């Protein structure tokens, strides 16, 4: 389902160009609007569709196996933290609205700035622990699993 761009809705802002993971949304130099330059490298990931501020980008199923006449549209709202989908079948018999959360917190605020947290002790550096461990492994006072704590031993080439 490669993406395509509606001529009358695109204003050439380039948000899709900026986000496309496959580098296939480019600006047409004479029309100054975006288009998909390489449909057979499109994963239908919808990153550009979600990023377009004008809903100018849509998807038409891959010509080699998807018939015409369907629609899967999306609106992603970072502030409200939700994504809304609408799926319409070719035969018109199914028309679904689906809503899902995309985050439970305001964007980025709960992610720690690790430059500002206390530096690890030498003891921690020499241990197998990572940041926030051992606490975050089980969210209790338990330690990290080791071979010893779990009663394990590595044996060479054993056929169990």
């Amino acid at each position, binding site marked *: 389902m490669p993406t395509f761009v509606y001529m009358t809705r695109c204003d050439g802002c380039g948000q899709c160009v900026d986000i496309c993971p496959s580098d296939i949304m480019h600006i047409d130099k004479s029309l100054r609007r975006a288009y998909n330059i390489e449909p057979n490298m499109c994963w239908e*990931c919808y990153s550009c569709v979600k990023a377009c501020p004008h809903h100018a980008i849509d998807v038409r199923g891959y010509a080699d196996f998807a018939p015409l006449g369907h629609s899967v549209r999306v609106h992603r709202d970072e502030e409200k*933290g939700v*994504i809304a989908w609408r799926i319409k079948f070719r035969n018109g018999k199914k028309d679904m609205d689906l809503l899902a959360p995309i985050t439970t917190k305001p964007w980025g605020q709960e992610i720690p700035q690790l430059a500002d947290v206390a530096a690890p002790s030498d003891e921690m550096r020499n241990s197998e622990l990572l940041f926030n461990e051992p606490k975050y492994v*089980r969210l209790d006072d338990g330690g990290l699993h080791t071979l010893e704590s779990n009663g394990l031993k590595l044996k060479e080439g054993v056929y169990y």
Partner: protein
Amino acid sequence: MAYKTIIEDDIDVLVAGAGLGGTGAAFEARYWGKDKKIVIAEKANIDRSGAVAQGLYAINCYMGTRWGENNPEDHVRYARMDLMGMVREDLAFDMARHVDSAVHQFEEWGLPLMRNPETGSYMREGRWQIMIHGESYKPIVAEAAKKSADKVFNRICVTHLLMDEAQENRVAGAVGFNVRTGNYHVFKAKTVIVGAGGASNIFKPRSVGEGAGRVWYAPWSSGSAYGLMIEAGAKMTQMENRIVLARFKDGYGPVGAYFLHLKTYTQNCNGEEYESKWFPALTEMVGKAYLDTEGQHLSHKPIPTCLRNHAFISEVNAGRGPIHMVTMEAFQDPHLEEIGWHNFLGMTVGQAVLWAATDVDPKYENPELTTSEPYVMGSHATGCGAWCSGPEDVSPPEYFWGYNRMTSVAGLFGAGDAVGGTPHAFSSGSFTEGRLSAKAACKYIDDGKGEGIVVSSKQIEDRKKEIYKPLETYTVGRNEIVAGTVNPNYINPRQGLDRLQKLMDEYCGGFGVNYMTNDKLLQIGLKKMKILGEDLEKVAAEDIHELLRAWELKHRFLTSESVFQHTLFRKETRWPGYYYRGDAMKLDDENWHVLTVSRRDPKTGEYTMEKAPLYHLVGDEEG
């Protein structure tokens, strides 16, 4: 050449490729290296790059030790069983004991994990999988990486690693070009963590034309994890262990939630259960230790992924295809129906598009399944990747050389698809591996192992010439013809990719030959690969975008060559359903209960192969 050379110097930790592995590495590196210079080079935009760009509806690797669900060794046992014994159990144990701490942080950062309303624990899809609303999984972890990194260079296609000229076999950074400006970027670094991806599109895909992009793994996963490391002379392991996926036909929509949560099941065209009848013969092929249907039934052990594929493939070959997923029962429940659709919208929108286009309503019609073309990657039910050191407190001497997740090249680390022998890491495990490699990389630097690196301007200039050569080839060759793409002196990247895919399919066990190969076919294939390699010296790029495709192709080529060499080396059929060696159709534990390890000599291009011992840390039965 008009393109500028932009040098980023004095980097401590360079993260090459920032999917889940790379973001984990960049994030964690800041904690252990407060004053270190951490730089990310990413081929796309970090907010939507890598295999998780469009989101995920599940985290497939979560122990749940907090809820008393599993211990790390249980996961090792599971991964080993699923991979027919071939796992680096030290690495797998290490990943599993840390992975929950990553998942708990994701929840704190805002990733919506579903909860079981009765128990309060996470909603389980299966024993290892938890369900999430993960549309924004990648933007969320990208945020964490951006907070930790000094600089993020988006749109840099990293083509090569730089090597130290003072000390043999030590990494010194990486080079590449900006796919928009065309500028040449040089990153001089004490350590490099390769977080780049595995390989889609190296075997001929089932889809043709436009649909060639609807591959199971992302089309931008160009095998760069392997291309970069192989080219630098890093040892690789288990590269023969490609994966074939049983998925919804054409759209390759995921089946995990359908099987595990929605309790759908498969049947042949006559509406019959077909798997079990193939098992007795399969037990003869692989031995009772790997498939003991009766015992397995009693112990509720899952059947390995490849063996279920085998039953699927065999049933279709017997003329009783297509295989259907029986959804009509589960989808009568409106709640389950909604989950079925959300599952696609959250991670494979294309499958929803396809069903809308073909009027397939799974409530009234059981959709078709198919087995995909093979893929080479290291974080799903397969363990391709670099031969890496394990952690000090777990690994035996053969598996330990100082720094966790360091490859056989000093200062070169891996995460996610890049690390071999660690299947079933998935997104959370890849992120965790990134964290582990970041801590180890900081220690490597603190131990003074990255001092005195020398990179001559000759090395930098030579690479620059090499990188832009396809543009030059085009300019010169294009003038000889009137118009079009047919030229006697060059091929374009698409033509090269088509040739590679056909070759891999026909000689290395693609879907077109029912995943079958043998010694003779592999030998012929390798000869043809050698010539393709020569022709790739003449790959031509019309513009910078095509130059990107040219270098992706070169990485895919190096990956494929390694897959050929490994497949040739392992003279047995270890994973029926992934591929078959027609000249050795049985699993052979006497000779091949080992990991395969290869090295490509960067100077000569010659391969050397060796066997490495397998160490086991758990028995088959749960305590």
